[in-house]
């Protein structure tokens, strides 16, 4: 095994482990332990990869190519750019935390559950390392397979409707992406994302963007989001908003923008506007949402809009900021959903009207929620702030009003996130909060603290990512008018 195999290993190790888990009649405990171990091994492999990554080179690293469908010039081609590395890191860390959360809360039907979680890990990593359009698409859809069951089986009371809507809605987008990528690949005779030429077809671009806009989601395409985030088990919501949704943004960064420079700049204003709308609209709805998950869900919508603004600013500041923001928001929303999960476990609800006063006597919960919350509202000095700052600095160079709207978004973020914090932690004790509801247990701390710690490290050194995004690759093909 060489270093280049690491990328493939990251994909197939968890999928292989999933199959092992399904096949072997292990006990609940053994299953969970194995799953957590594998997801930790993923983190380990990723760290090894990051340590070996040569950031001074801008090209693809840890790449591997094998034939898949020669007839149509489709290949199994994986590898990582610097920014892919960060996406992968986000994935493996968040997935490890969420898998461990599932272990901690003791999900029933453990073999199915952990197998699916591992499968999801592999598929998601695949999305971020695929260097072939069809392979990318395969993983992009492959994520839905475990998600459908994860939401549908272990979700809340409205899970059936939510999961069908989620899957069909996102598939609606990705099927048009399939049409678009067929058009692209057949036209140019290659599906390779490294050697593929740029295209100026607006239709193909829009096909791709539809998929990414739904996945991210951008403003008018978010209909699946509230239900899915509310009805999923908390760790799946965490994965959905922390990792899965990022695949859409990754797609914009990796495919829609660099491969379609002309259409991207032709539709730039449209997508900047959609991003801005998502930001304002999401923030306003987050501000009125009556429950914890609602706030996090709509804030994810707002953040996706902001990131889209960064991506479509089309300059270094925007790209770097977007990458940082994606990673930071991934951790933030994962942590927030997991915390929401711990709150729900203690109170059986996440309705603000029934919550409150949880800070008293639960310092760990309060500290973690507070820390994550203020990072999420982009208090200056946080990693989210660094990301937003770069994004909006980039957007300003496109036109001043995008930056103004974005800055307005920061204020709105403060409003809704403080509302969440207060409604859960502060004021009078909510009717569902009993006195003997415990503070976070060591097991829960072991999941959430690493996430928050990662965020703090990123806050202390955002340049660690922004200076090592390698988005120059994306930019070289951008035609700035």
């Amino acid at each position, binding site marked *: 095994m060489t270093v280049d195999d690491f990328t493939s290993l990251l994909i197939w190790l968890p999928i292989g482990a999933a199959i092992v888990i399904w096949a072997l009649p292990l006990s609940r405990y053994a299953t969970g332990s194995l799953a957590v171990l594998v997801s930790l091994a993923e983190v380990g492999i990723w760290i090894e990869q990051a340590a070996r990554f040569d950031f001074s080179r801008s090209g693809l690293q840890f790449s591997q190519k094998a034939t898949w469908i020669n*007839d149509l010039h489709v290949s199994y081609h994986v590898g990582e750019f610097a920014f892919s590395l960060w996406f992968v890191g986000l994935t493996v860390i968040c997935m490890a935390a969420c898998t461990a959360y599932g272990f901690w809360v003791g999900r029933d039907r453990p073999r199915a559950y952990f197998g699916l979680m591992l499968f999801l890990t592999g598929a998601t990593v695949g999305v971020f390392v695929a260097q072939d359009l069809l392979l990318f698409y395969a993983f992009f859809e492959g994520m839905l397979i475990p998600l459908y*069951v994860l939401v*549908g089986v272990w979700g809340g009371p409205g*899970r059936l409707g939510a999961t069908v809507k989620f*899957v069909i809605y996102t598939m609606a987008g990705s099927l048009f992406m399939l*049409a678009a990528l067929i058009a692209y690949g057949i036209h140019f005779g290659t599906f390779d994302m490294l050697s593929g030429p740029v295209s100026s077809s607006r239709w193909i671009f829009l096909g791709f963007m539809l998929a990414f806009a739904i996945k991210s989601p951008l403003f008018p395409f978010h209909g699946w989001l509230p239900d899915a985030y509310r009805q999923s088990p908390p760790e799946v919501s965490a994965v959905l908003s922390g990792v899965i949704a990022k695949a859409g943004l990754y797609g914009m960064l990796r495919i829609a923008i660099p491969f379609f420079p002309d259409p991207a700049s032709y539709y730039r204003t449209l997508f900047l506007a959609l991003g801005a709308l998502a930001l304002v609209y999401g923030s306003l709805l987050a501000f009125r949402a009556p429950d914890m998950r609602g706030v996090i869900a709509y804030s994810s919508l707002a953040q996706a809009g902001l990131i889209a603004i960064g991506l479509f600013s089309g300059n270094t500041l925007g790209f770097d900021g977007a990458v940082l923001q994606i990673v930071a928001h991934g951790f933030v929303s994962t942590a927030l959903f997991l915390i929401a999960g711990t709150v729900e476990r203690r109170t059986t609800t996440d309705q603000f009207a029934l919550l409150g006063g949880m800070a008293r006597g639960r310092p760990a919960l309060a500290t973690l929620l507070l820390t994550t919350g203020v990072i999420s509202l982009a208090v200056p000095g946080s990693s989210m702030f660094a990301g937003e700052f770069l994004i909006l600095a980039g957007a300003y160079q496109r036109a001043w009003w995008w930056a103004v709207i974005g800055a307005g978004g920061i204020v709105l973020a403060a409003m809704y996130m403080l509302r969440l914090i207060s409604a859960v932690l502060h004021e009078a004790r909510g009717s569902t909060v009993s006195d003997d509801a415990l503070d976070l247990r060591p097991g829960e701390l072991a999941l959430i603290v690493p996430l928050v710690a990662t965020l703090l490290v990123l806050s202390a050194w955002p340049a660690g990512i922004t200076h090592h995004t390698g988005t120059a690759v994306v930019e070289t093909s951008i035609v700035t008018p």
Partner: protein
Amino acid sequence: MIHTPHVDWFAISTMLVLLGASFIALLGAVLVPAGARRTFAATVSGLGFAGGLITSIWLYVTSADGHLVVSGAFYRDRWTMLAQIVICGIGLVTTLVGAEHVARPRDEHIAEFFSLLLASAAGMTFFVGSANLMVMFLSLEWFSIALYVMCAIDYDVEGSLEAGLKYLIIGSFGSAALLFGSALVYGATNRIDFAGIAANGHSNDSLLVLGLAMIIAGLGFKSSSAPFHMWTPDVYEGAPTTVTAFMSAATKVAAFALAFRLMRTAFPAEEHLWSWAFAGIAVASLAIGNLAALVQRNVKRMLAYSSISHAGFLLIGLSTGSALGGRALLYYLIVYSAMAFGSFAVVAARERELGRPVTIDNLAGFGWERPFLGVAMWCFLFGFAGLPLGGGFVAKFYVLSAAYKHGWAWLVIVGVVFTLVSLYYYLAVVRAMYMRPSEELQLAPVAGGSPPREPLLHIAVGIALAVSVGSLFVVDPLVDLTKHAVAALPF
């Protein structure tokens, strides 16, 4: 003195093996005591299909340069042989599923059942290699008649009889249309062999075109494409599930393999006509199949509509008429037949467990009770939907690519839109299997206690699963097979 033509016995050895097995099984119905009949017939059938598989693979290997045998009546080339391999494979797994079936009426006629199974497979292997309209028509009738009987073999069940009668009458109507079309083509060209038709036909000859239209209708019936599909749901639902599984997979392979060859070999000059015709039929099939499947409660019926919609996808590949389309078509057929067979086999398992028709509702909890079958069904359904959990994904990509390359972007869009529609009902089955607690289910296994153990059925489902999932990964070897097969056709 009559000089009988040279007969390349090896070229038709697959059919001979199958027919031989069929006769042995038939003899068994008379000679073997009732108690051992099932074992005997199933063994014979399994050996027959295995032998057929071996000979067809051998023939595939040795038929690199395709040619006509038995005085120009039969194509010995890789196109034929690949289709034969698939059909024999389907037959083999059908035998596995049928070997354990415990429905009473067929216990009386179990040997005849396997005999008919072998015979119909033999007919199909002839059908796909036929080189003139007469052999085509005769072998079509050959396997159709066997299928009519197999559909109705559960004659204690009203639905089975109804299915048999419907299939027979509509099938005969379709055959008559095909026959009349053949006659017109014969009249227009004075020839019945495919190559001769191509050589003598004129694409502006209305006699020929009318014949072509009627032939398309006849083949459309066999491949259950809209609007010639109406028999499909009823027959699939009414027929014994083992038969449905066989029919849904093997008939499609035979019909599409032949249709592509016929169009390419006999009607190359009329491509502008039949490609549009098939495209139109494809759209109709996609629309009707998918939409009607949305509101089904009976799983077999739903899968029947789904098979109509997949006929639509196969027709997309067919309509391109290109070599790429041919490869896509064969690849799709291989994957589709595995998935279709497998899904019906899983339904069969549930049906045997419950002793009544399987509906979406009484699948509840199935995935948890029978994990292996559940996972397999999960893979088949997601594969049908074109999600990357199996070759269904690549297959869809393939045919749509072929359509795009043909310049039919609109067809790609249509395919994509209806794939989206299809998602709903495939997911509904998964939802039923996993997301409803089995306590909701008021039914119990017929025998009571734990569900029957059916090792052979599990093996059959396992094979289907392996093909359907494996084809996602080993695409190139499969495509190479199809490539060689397509190379046998004139372009």
